[in-house]
């Protein structure tokens, strides 16, 4: 195992990069895999100094579920937002700021949460608090900011917590 660690210090990244190569090359050949793998070994070595305190995921397998949920939310929210943008007069729309207190600690997790919020239409992560314990979210049209905050915490933060911390 130690040998494995020494040769492949970033197994997930290496795997991801190998996959990336294959995706990019659109070729599922042995050559491609080998080559992608080699690059997957070299590149993390090169970039390692720039990502010193790399977070270790606790339950990486839960990522897939999370992604699916988010994708689904994106589709649904898009439709809502499209309706707001196209048909709802500005005067009846209720833009709101929402403060989301954070339980997440690791930068990667917080970033994932903020990204998720932004990518789901209707909400945008606008800022972190000075010490990183709260997230400022803007809602395009929210009658009940509390509900938005709770949904974020329930639906996304909890899951990210599982994955990362």
């Amino acid at each position: 195992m130690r040998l494995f660690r020494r040769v492949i210090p970033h197994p997930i990244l290496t795997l991801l990069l190998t996959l990336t190569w294959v995706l990019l090359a659109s070729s599922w050949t042995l050559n491609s895999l080998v080559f992608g793998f080699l690059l997957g070994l070299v590149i993390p070595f090169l970039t390692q100094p720039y990502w010193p305190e790399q977070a270790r995921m606790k339950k990486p397998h839960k990522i897939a579920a999370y992604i699916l949920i988010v994708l689904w939310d994106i589709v649904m929210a898009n439709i809502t937002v499209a309706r707001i943008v196209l048909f709802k007069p500005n005067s009846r729309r209720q833009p709101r700021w929402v403060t989301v207190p954070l339980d997440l600690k690791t930068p990667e997790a917080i970033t994932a949460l903020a990204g998720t919020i932004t990518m789901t239409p209707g909400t945008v992560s606008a800022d972190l608090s000075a010490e990183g314990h709260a997230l400022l979210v803007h809602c395009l049209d929210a009658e009940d900011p509390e509900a938005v905050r709770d949904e974020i915490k329930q639906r996304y933060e909890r899951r990210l917590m599982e994955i990362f911390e």
Partner: protein
Amino acid sequence: MSLFLIAALPFLGAVFPALLIRAGRNASASAAGLTTFLAFTGLMLHIPAVFNGEVVQARFDWLPGLGLNANFFLDGLGFLFATLILGIGLLIILYARFYLSREDPMGQFYTYLLLFQGAMVGIVLSDNILLLLVFWELTSLSSFLLIGYWKHLPEGRQGARMALAVTGSGGLAMIAGMLILGHIVGSYDLSVILQNKDLIQASPLYLPALILILLGCFTKSAQFPFHFWLPHAMAAPTPVSAYLHSATMVKAGLFLMARLWPVLAGTPEWFYIVATTGLITMLLGAVIALFKDDLKALLAFSTVSHLGLITMLLGFGTKIAAVAAVFHIINHATFKAALFMSAGIVDHEAHTRDIKRLGGLRHLMPVTFTIVLVASLSMAGIPPFNGFLSKEMMLEETVHTLWGGSHYLVPGLALIAALFSAAYSFRFIVHVFLGPKRSDYPAQPHDPGPGMWLGPAFLITLVILIGLFSAKLAGPMVAVAAGAVTGGNDLPYYSLKLWHGLTPALYMSIAAVLGGALLLKLHRPLQAAWEAAPRPEAKAIFDRLMHGLTKLAQLITDGLHNGAITRYAFVMMLFIIGISYYAYQGGTLAAATREVQNVGPIPLIAWFCLVIATGAVVAKHRQRQLSLVLIGVVGLVVSMGFNYLSAPDLALTQLSVEVVTMVLLLLALNFMPKESPIKAPNWVRARDGAIAVIGGLGASALIYALMLRDFAMPSISEYHLANSYKGGGGTNVVNVILVDFRGYDTFGEIIVLGIAALVIFALTEAVLGTRVRAYLLNRKPDMPQAGDAHPMMMVVATRVMMPLALMVAAYIFFRGHNLPGGGFIAGLIAAIALLMQYMASGFTWASERQRVFYHGIIGSGVLIAAATGLGAWFNDMPFLTSDYGYLYWPPLEKFEWATAALFDLGVFLAVVGAVLLALESLARFAWQPGMSTEHAMDINPARDDAPQQNSDEV
């Protein structure tokens, strides 16, 4: 002795004093004297030949392509002048050794003097008019140095520049004249030219050539109206005046007139120009000389007058006049050099040359007095001295000369001149040496040591001897010299003797002497009248002219080159457009051969975006950040356009270059004003707008016309398409062109990038090495700053992206040979991936993590590219010859490899290094002490748990 050696010896002699500067005054004087003596001896060895009427020659083809040959010949005329130059030169060298003071740099003096001597010898020995020109100009230069020898005297500096200006311009005119002369004859060799009188005088170019050559002669010989420089040259040390300005250099013009006399003289043009100029000069010089109180000025104007005399004689165009001219040249050289040296002695001893402050010196300086007495009487034309003889001949000739139908004009004026000449000669004797001894000399005068008076004493001996035994002593010399001047041995009868009977000339001589005495008697009232009379002061005019010229030059130069690049660029645009239009309308344009292609709506919209954004950049260019945003639109449209029009490689390059450029511009803009406040006046903007529109229309029309026409011949790119795969091993033809067909261009291109980075680095060092650094360190942001310099999301996102981006870079790199991509784009992507780290986590944090120096990356990139190119040499193939093939390692499939990829790797590295070095250098400007942080992101709650080491949070 070879003529080459005679001509070269003075120049060799010039070297020694320069080298012997430290060896002392005697050493340099001896060296100068010795070489001159050697040359003189060498010259004398040719006496038998010359007096036999032979012409001694030495020939060397120096610049045959031009007809400039180092050909020398020695005939009577040359011999006469060379003898004067070297002989008097020896005397001057001796004289100067004692004349110059201890403070004067002796070596320098002799160097200049011998340079001059060499140039003069060169002139008189040249058998090639271009060679003669070389020496001619050299005399101007060396005399410039000699006149300005006393650098601390403003008169010296100004006199030197005046002499150079006048004689220099004459010399330049003469160049043209000589070239024309050579053109008429078809050769620049004097011996050839002198055989072609009829050809020359029949040529329509005769007159221009004559005028131009005479300009040279007149300026050099101080003929009216160019005479004014000579008196000002008297600021030179007296040996110089004696040598250059009486005996030799001023005679160069006379020499040349004499030299070319056989082919130029004898025409009415010659007569009227030369004789008239001479006559006026003679008269004017004599008159002015009488009223000069400075001894040297008196002598200078007297020299002007005598030069005029000789010029006039040459101008008469008759052989007998030429004989007289030659004779007077000899005589004048002897008595005038003696007089100059004497004046120098007076100056040296009494510390003044002002006649008004002198008088009664005959008791104090008997030797000098004797010398001056004899020489002055000779100059006045008193028998039995030599001056009398030649002046008599001159007067005789004037009597026979008809000017514009008048018998009396020339002799009349000549008589007046002779009268004044006698008067100033007497004045030198009477006002300086006669009269009562004075008590107020600036220094107590007495005769100097023999070193100073031996020379002039020798000369007055000649004056007397030639006067008494003219036929014996001077006769042969005059005969051969005059024979050379008149171009043959058939000289008319003349006799050199004191008594010719009661001729008109004798009466005129008597009248001149008596009148001269009378004038001297009347000197005081005359001087008063002279000084009261308004007359143009040549120096003032010249100074004004030069000053005006300099001012004008400064005005023109500053006016044209005022540092306004806006105007330079405007002129450039105007010129380019004008000339291009001129070229266009001079040709014909055939009908278009291609159809216009249809346009879909999307390209139309893209075009619309481009045009609007471009217009907006122009309209809003004063808001700088907005302009950058708008440029971003332009860049996007251009990239999309490339992509749409089948140029994916270009699109990729443009896109990535765009990003880097934008970062760069923003980095720079941070330090610069955010607005451009200066607003040009409306008319300027209208003018600029007009030229811009015309330029734009021109470019449009040109490319439109080109696009609608087919190549007359197939493009070479057909070969590239056909051979890209076969010969280059790649299917992306653009890439194969870049790394293979035209890899050399790419090699140059990466070097351009590398250099750019080096320049930027060097510049950063230079700027940060100055007080600018202090300014930057204390600089306050000019806009309010937000908190959170390194936002967490940015940091995390870029961390995730970096390996992915590098992967993409690798992908783009490896596929480049076959599909869009390649080393350059890959390099940019990699660079941007790193750049993101800089932007996200800050300069200090990121550069601490940079383990390889960018200089090294650039260098290795260039070296790898070069080494790949050089690798071909081992196969004895040219630089950058590529190779490709396949590798097969089971169980893998075969790998394709190409050396071009290695070359591309060089490109990749150079790009990465260059981009990052440039950006890093720029970022260094912004570095301030408070900025360093050990953390990549300002906010990180994960640090809450970690033990607090250093709360450096901003």
